[in-house]
């Protein structure tokens, strides 16, 4: 059963990821990205990270991809990019070599360390399993206990990001004198 879930979710993840980089229409790439994000959310559920899975769907699929689609459609940059034209010679082959090299090296490291990380079977973790909301309780104790300063700092980060974006994208009204000759 777990095997079936893993295979289906892995297929979703890989098909979506390949779709992001080969579809030449940005809207199609964004929809492929949603497929990948849902596959990763399924894997989070399979790994008993229920709260993170919910956040993945809400924040990534629900907010970030919608933000991408908003920008694509507001700017009208949804015309297809010509993927046949290669701007620099050797760019694609070098990128492929780097991608295969990265994947190969990381997979070799993981496989060579499989005894240390235990490929013989997933370890039972009593504090992460149990009744339905124990995962959320554990995570809350961690976020609001050990990492509460970092949690407060993320709120500052979000406010800075929002204010910075408003400053970046605001249009200066023609009647108002602008300070930098915009």
């Amino acid at each position, binding site marked *: 059963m*777990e*095997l079936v879930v893993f295979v289906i979710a892995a297929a979703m993840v890989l098909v979506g990821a390949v779709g*992001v980089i080969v579809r030449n229409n940005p809207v199609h790439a964004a929809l492929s990205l949603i497929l990948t*994000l849902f596959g*990763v959310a399924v894997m989070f559920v399979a790994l008993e990270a229920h709260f993170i899975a919910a956040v993945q769907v809400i924040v990534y699929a629900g907010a970030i991809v919608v933000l991408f689609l908003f920008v694509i459609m507001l*700017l*009208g940059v949804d015309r297809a990019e010509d993927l046949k034209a290669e701007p620099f010679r050797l760019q694609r082959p070098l990128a492929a070599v780097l991608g295969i090299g990265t994947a190969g090296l990381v997979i070799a490291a993981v496989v060579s360390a499989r005894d240390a990380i235990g*490929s013989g079977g997933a370890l039972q973790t009593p504090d992460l399993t149990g009744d339905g909301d124990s995962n959320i309780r554990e995570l809350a104790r961690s976020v609001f206990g050990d990492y509460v300063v970092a949690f407060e700092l993320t709120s500052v980060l979000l406010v800075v990001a929002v204010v910075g974006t408003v400053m*970046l994208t605001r249009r200066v009204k023609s009647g108002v004198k602008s300070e930098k000759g915009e």
Partner: protein
Amino acid sequence: MNEVLAVATPTTTWYLILAALLFAIGAVGVLVRRNPLVMFMCIELMLNAVNLSFVALAKRLGDIGGQTTVFFVMVVAAAEVVVGLGIIVSIMRRRPGATADDVAELKG
């Protein structure tokens, strides 16, 4: 058949290999694509690959700290997307259809 399924239970190694593949696909996308929006999506792919390996190891080690890290990564990714899309909007407004090759100077 049931014995085969019992033996072939996905382990932490499988998740880590999948995360490596996802990261490599995202890296190739950043290098190959020239539309800044699609490059951003590929960065999201790479972030998700790292999140997947964090959660897999959190399960394996029985440590909730991995999931906490994923939580903070998601917050920072959201802030990063907001700022990055703001920059892309202001670039595109000045030069419609700009690709990554056209953005060679800081003052658009």
